[in-house]
């Protein structure tokens, strides 16, 4: 009997069109646009001037405080402009534009990063590894982009006894983690070991949904002879990749409301993050590229790609055959939790796990009807909330009541709105309510 989380959850159509596709490298562009807010937390602070010459992997913006991350240039070149640039979501953000000359391209082709030797790696202390991860600007690559260094440093008095590697990939369409687990199992396992060393945890479990049998087998094969690391197949159910749901599925423990995973002794990292940590520690390569899926029902040649951060989304989509004529909506991330974008001229950033193109006729919401109290949202909610009630409470501005009903525990997985037969915009309102209640609580304290 395969494990999964117990409460709520839904079965979404998978649409894993790119499950069999290898990872294709998209060459570095001649011009990149690097934004300073690619993570949760404070925006990084610019460290270059227009006209400066930068070398691939050099820091161009420094982390601003603990919850922040360094930003590096993915190519060598000259800083052309520094200024505000519209992100894919339409908000202005501080950015640097870097342009490579022919010599720079030549230089990048000939000079790589110098990998650490076995001896050097053996000599690293846990603190060293954490510093390398922080310097490399690694953030959670599952989509949340929380700075990884912070997660590797449990608060004083807390101790982790299990490391959970998130290979659930429960979002429809996305297969970037799947492709990575097929192509780079050794590198992922190596990254997992670095995390174990950094955190002093001696047991790691890679949780993978059983719709990716090939990835499970592949990891198991490469884990032969390893002790302390295992693969756990999980029963496919959305949102298994949610941190709390994954911990519940793997350990059977529930993270208490408002607490961190470490309170039940767990640290969760995405497989993509483990891979990025491998590259940072072993290859000395900061986070300047990532793997993402470009997919959609009408996309000509959907696939998994390795993309340098700062590459325009347009270029990424062109690698998959371009934008289908009937496209109505483009999403960064999966269709359950991803965000719709306004512009494809914006650059790829650290949190982009996929680009999903939705045809026009499926892009619009259908008409909203009155709540018929069927209870589908209550049944679907993995957090045990009552979405049907949270929506009118938000509409009526009942912030205190909303808080009592646990609105702040919502993980925004979208199960409620997905399931609602009346097509009610439940999550839109819950998000608003959550924001307002958080604001209220901040004012109180």
């Amino acid at each position, binding site marked *: 009997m395969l494990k999964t989380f117990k*409460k709520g959850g*839904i079965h*979404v*159509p998978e649409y894993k069109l790119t499950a069999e596709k290898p990872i294709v490298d998209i060459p570095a562009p001649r011009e990149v646009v690097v934004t300073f807010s690619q993570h949760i937390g404070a925006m990084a602070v610019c460290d270059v001037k227009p006209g400066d010459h930068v070398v691939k992997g050099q820091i161009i913006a420094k982390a601003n405080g603990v919850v922040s991350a360094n930003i590096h240039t993915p190519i060598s070149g000259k800083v052309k402009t520094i200024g505000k640039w519209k992100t894919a979501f339409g908000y202005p953000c501080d950015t640097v534009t870097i342009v490579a000359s022919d010599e720079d391209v030549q230089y990048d082709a000939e000079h790589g990063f110098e990998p650490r030797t076995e001896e050097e790696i053996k000599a690293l202390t846990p603190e060293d590894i954490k510093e390398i991860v922080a310097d490399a600007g690694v953030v959670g690559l599952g989509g949340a982009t929380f700075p990884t260094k912070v997660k590797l440093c449990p608060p004083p008095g807390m101790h982790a006894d299990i490391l959970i590697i998130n290979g659930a990939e429960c979002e*429809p369409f996305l297969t970037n983690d799947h492709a990575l687990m097929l192509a780079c199992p050794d590198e992922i396992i190596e990254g997992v070991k670095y995390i174990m060393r950094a955190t002093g945890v001696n047991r790691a479990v890679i949780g993978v949904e059983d719709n990716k049998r090939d990835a499970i087998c592949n990891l198991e094969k490469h884990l032969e002879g390893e002790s302390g690391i295992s693969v756990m197949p999980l029963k496919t159910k959305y949102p298994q990749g949610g941190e*709390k749901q994954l911990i*519940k599925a793997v350990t059977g423990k*529930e*993270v*208490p*409301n408002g*607490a961190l995973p470490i309170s039940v002794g767990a640290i969760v990292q995405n497989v993509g993050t483990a891979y990025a940590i491998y590259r940072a520690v072993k290859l000395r390569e900061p986070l300047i590229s990532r793997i993402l899926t470009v997919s959609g029902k009408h996309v000509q040649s959907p696939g998994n790609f390795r993309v340098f951060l700062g590459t325009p989304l347009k270029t990424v989509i062109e690698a998959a055959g371009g*934008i289908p004529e009937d*496209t*109505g*909506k*483009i*999403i960064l991330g999966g*269709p*359950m*939790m*991803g965000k*719709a974008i*306004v*512009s*494809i*001229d914006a650059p790829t950033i650290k949190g982009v796990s996929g680009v*999903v193109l939705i045809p026009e006729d*499926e*892009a*619009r*919401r*259908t008409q909203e*009807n*009155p*709540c*018929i*109290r*069927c*209870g589908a949202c*209550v*049944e679907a*909610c*993995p*957090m*045990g*909330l*009552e979405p*049907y009630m949270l929506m009118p409470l938000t509409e009526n501005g009942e912030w205190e009541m909303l808080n009592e009903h646990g609105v702040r*525990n919502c993980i*925004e997985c*979208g199960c409620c*709105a*997905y399931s*609602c*037969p*009346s097509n009610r915009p439940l*999550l*839109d309102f819950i*998000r608003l309510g959550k924001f307002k209640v958080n604001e209220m609580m901040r004012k109180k304290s």
Partner: protein
Amino acid sequence: MSNRRLIVSGSPHIHTGSSVKSRMWGVVIALLPALAFSLYAFGIGALVVIAVSVLGCVMTEYLIQRYLIKGELTITNGSAVITGLLLAMNLPSNLPVWIVLIGCVVAIGLGKYAFGGLGQNIFNPAILGRVFLLISFPQQMTSWPLPMVNRASYLDATTGATILGKMKLNELVPDNVDLMGAFMGQMGGSLGEMCGLAILLGGAYLLVRRIISWHIPVSIIATVALFSWCAGINPLVSILSGGVLLGAVFMATDYVTSPMTHKGMVLYGVMIGVITMIIRLWGAYPEGVSFAILIMNGFTPLINKYMRPRQFGERKVK
């Protein structure tokens, strides 16, 4: 492409595809076996009552939406059709047209729109209509045409008491009830409650399509069975001889008027079973399913308030 405007909206960007409409018409499909059987058993009378009831409910809803609320017309979502069908299922096949129409107006007007329309009503409209008629026209509402022999007659149908009616008057002891006959519809009763087999077929369809969950029907039927067994009555007699199956599968599972959580549904179902049996055994009426459902409809908001789902990671209050 760059100059094309992209659609922007909050996640999720996909939807189950299940709609109010698809679920409502699913219920209509589930009612087909029971409807077909009632036509087979009561012939022309059933046809008239069903047709008048459905048309009456749809017309009432249309007139209210069009002239009273002056709002959007939502007839096609099928909810008025269901109310009409369910009301008809709860009526005898020799009920005069004008009484059926009064039932429709009460069901839709008083039961549904007085509270604000779809999703707002406290009581199940069809049952409200039926109970209104039962109290207002006790004579007509309790003369039950005999099945099979009345296919060609409507108002002039020959009538007889139901099994429960006979049991109430001690004319029949539970041990002598023809259970197989009751299951296959060989008994007197309202249109839809006759054939247990047809209702269970519909119920199976609703469960398979996940339009309803098992919690309400199973808890009602199990409670009735257990209560009967404790009272020394063959549980199958209690389940098959009246409206328990129709009530458990089609009436009590109405989304709007039943609780939201599974544990709330179980409590609601158990209480319907208990109240039904109390009315049957000690009440003035031979049958109590409709009253039991209406009473528990009234408790549904309270159940929703106190039987909430357990939150993930809820801290225990010490």
